[in-house]
């Protein structure tokens, strides 16, 4: 018994030492340390964090402490909860759909960055520049060119019975991509017509997945040849798999756009450094960010790799006013649920 106790304690000590050694290699120089809240993919090895952060630190001498959680909603909620004590200087990753909540929170301080000159006005969804766009994506259906169904040419096309069980949709109640699709249909068909589209295409749907991860996963495993994703999805496959098999489709009705933004907190004590970071992301950080997130850079001057040729550019793009979204989202998703449940 004593021996077991001894072993247990030894093990515990060993573990704590390992943990401490991890923690040890970390500086806490508060002087010039920026705290950045962003979603988890940023910090991942495949995200832009690991390249951009050291680069920024090198160039400016400002240290950045990256705090990443699951997704933007979590980050925002957390910051709101933390209120005055929020240690973050910057929050990165809030999309225009969620902006209303961000505005309400009054957390953010406007920043008129000089770099915004190079950013198209249509992308600056916040006139007051509290939330500054840094990349954007366009929702599109992606099609498997090796499948036996022809590529649909429009949203209307998807209602065709030839696509029965060939489409993977995503649930707007549980996913921002699903939500994007919902808004896309409202953009195109209006509030009176969008549900008809959903009812029709819902019949053709193999499944309505809970999120992009599972939805796209089903797609790559060959369950169905059409999935809702982004115009930039093929870029990944070209870059890393040398494959042009998966193609994003441009529809003449137009596409819905989602813009990701970064904002500086009013409570920040490192405003100058925060501004420097924002500028950095909007200039040197653009290419890396876009590629890592499979999105487009907002800065028109960014040079992108050739693979981006496989991300088609739609003619028409829609956006929705965040206030409008916030006011109606509850009703829309409820209506949607009603309509889809009685299929």
């Amino acid at each position, binding site marked *: 018994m004593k021996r077991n106790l001894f072993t247990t304690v030894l093990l515990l000590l060993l573990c704590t030492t390992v943990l401490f050694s991890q923690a040890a290699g*970390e500086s806490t120089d508060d002087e010039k340390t920026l705290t950045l809240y962003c979603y988890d993919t940023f910090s*991942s090895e495949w995200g832009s964090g690991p390249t951009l952060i050291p680069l920024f630190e090198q160039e400016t001498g400002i240290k950045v402490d990256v705090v990443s959680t699951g997704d933007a909603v979590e980050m925002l909620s957390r910051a709101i909860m933390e209120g005055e004590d929020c240690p973050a200087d910057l929050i990165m990753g809030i999309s225009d759909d969620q902006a209303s909540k961000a505005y309400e929170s009054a957390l953010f301080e406007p920043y008129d960055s000089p770099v915004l000159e190079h950013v198209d006005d249509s992308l600056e969804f916040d006139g007051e520049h509290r939330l500054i766009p840094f990349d954007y994506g366009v929702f599109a259906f992606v099609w498997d060119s090796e499948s036996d169904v022809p590529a649909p040419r429009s949203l209307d096309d998807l209602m065709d019975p030839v696509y029965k069980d060939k489409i993977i949709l995503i649930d707007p109640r549980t996913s921002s991509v699903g939500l994007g699709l919902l808004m896309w249909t409202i953009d195109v068909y209006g509030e009176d017509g969008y549900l008809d589209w959903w009812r029709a295409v819902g019949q053709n749907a193999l*499944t309505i997945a*809970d999120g992009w991860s599972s939805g796209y996963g089903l797609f790559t495993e060959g369950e169905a040849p059409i999935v809702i994703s982004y115009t930039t999805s093929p870029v990944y496959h070209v870059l890393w798999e040398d494959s042009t098999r998966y193609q994003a489709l441009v529809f003449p009705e137009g596409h819905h756009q989602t813009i990701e933004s970064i904002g500086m907190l009013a409570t920040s004590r490192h405003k100058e450094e925060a501004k420097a970071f924002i500028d950095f992301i909007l200039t040197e950080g653009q290419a890396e960010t876009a590629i890592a997130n499979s999105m487009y850079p907002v800065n028109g001057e960014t040079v992108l790799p050739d693979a981006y040729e496989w991300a088609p550019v739609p003619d028409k793009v829609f956006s929705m006013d965040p206030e409008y979204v916030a006011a109606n989202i509850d009703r829309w998703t409820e209506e949607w649920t009603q309509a889809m449940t009685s299929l």
Partner: protein
Amino acid sequence: MRGRKRESAFYPAMAAIPMVLLVIVFLLPLSFNLARAFFDEDGFTLSNVKEVISTPYTYRLLSFTLMQAALSSLVSVLVALPGAYLYANYRFRLKRLMLSLSSLCFVLPSILVVLGFVIFYGNSGFVNDIWRTITGREEAIRILYSFKAIILAHAFLNIPVALTLITEDWAHTPRSQENASYLLGSSKVHTFLTITLPRIMPTVLSAALLIFLFCFTSFSIILVLGGGPQYTTLEVEIYRTNNIVMDSAKASALSLFSFLVNLVILVLYMAVSRNAASREKSRDDRAVRPTSWKTKAAIALYNTLMLIFMLGPLVSILARSVISTSSRYKEGFSLRSYAELFGLHRSVGVMSDAFQALVNSLVIALVVALLSTVMALFLCLYTTRRRSKAVEVVGMFPLAISSVTLGLGYYIIRAHIHSSGVLAGYILVILAHLVIAMPFAMRTISPVMRSGNPRILDAAYTLGASVSRTCFGVEIPMLKTTLARAFIFSFALSVGEVNATLTLAEGKVVTLPILLYRLINSYNYQGACAIGSVLMVMTFIIFALAQAMGTRRSNGNS
């Protein structure tokens, strides 16, 4: 009763530490979360709660949630019963392997389960490939994206739970009652129905209720594999309200509602399992070598079907991890993912490569398992010796909470802790995993402790041993195998946990499931399956070890 005075300080002191932990790490954030249901911009209000209770939609959701959970539970138990019969009554070589394998399914992250199902049962999946080859038809049999797929997936996850629980109980039921029944002229079937079934019914019920609880809070499996919003649960509504509509008060009201329903089920479960534990049990295993060829055939058949059923999706994940869809490297068989993961290619930056993630997962799991077992032990000691139902229920609370609600609670914790360091990340992750693992550890230890012989302790007391000495020197050593099992299970749960880790680690600590999550988000399904495979193999080895340890001990004792 036994000398109350003696015991007065010791057992409560033991229970104090885990209770404090539970309160701070779990109950407090939970109550903050649920309390939001009562507050609006204007202050205290019951409107959210009223709205939730009075909307018919809430009840529609509730009824579907209850129905799918009940059906899943029923199916799982019914399929497990014949298996439990065979496993409890007969000894055969594959038994240990089967029991280890089955526990595996339970601890995997759900995204992996979904992926495995798709690769195995999907329209372009393995089963359909075989079907097409055999029948020559082009059309696939549609297994997934339907209600039956939900039940199938839930069964996959939970049949092992029922199988293990019922087998365990049945194996230690003495045969004499059934023998008596045979001698009184009752046929085997009649004996089973009138004697055996009533005897094991409490355990069967308790397994059913536990499975019910798990299925109640199921989320992604239902949506993806079910095929659409016609199959939707309370959890989805909570998620929608919180993350899409961003009405946190209403989300909390819904969470409260869900929590209360779950609590009722939890209390029922505990009452039933208490009943099950109080049945007379024998220390010997009643398993014997099968003699008739019919029995042997039945065992072989059941095992084969089980293996296909359980291994199917798991092997699919393994297979996918070595199939590259990249034309650059070459399509088909490829170990590239593994090479990449283990740092040989493209390893970038300060953030971890897979090896680091593996180490983190192992170390965290080890600490969690140790602490969880110890804390659960302390709590169980208290609840058994002092018969405190309330404390036990509180210890099992985390079972009644869904991951969505838990997640909300976690970032409330995080918001209140102002340290962003790596160490804080580790500590919080460990604490969160601890809270999740403790109910399972308790559920493992408690019944064994309850059916133990209190006379042994009395013997020690009369020999002059103090309460603490008896506890550490006599009581705890008696529980060694059970403690090992609780340890293993806690370890496995920690290794596979992703939601809490994401929120609390803040990107500073990378574990295998987080790597999995990241890989999936960056389109790399082959890589994700590779990590999933590593997770599976690791968990399997651990469970196999536990089984081996358990059997060796009992062989030694007999």
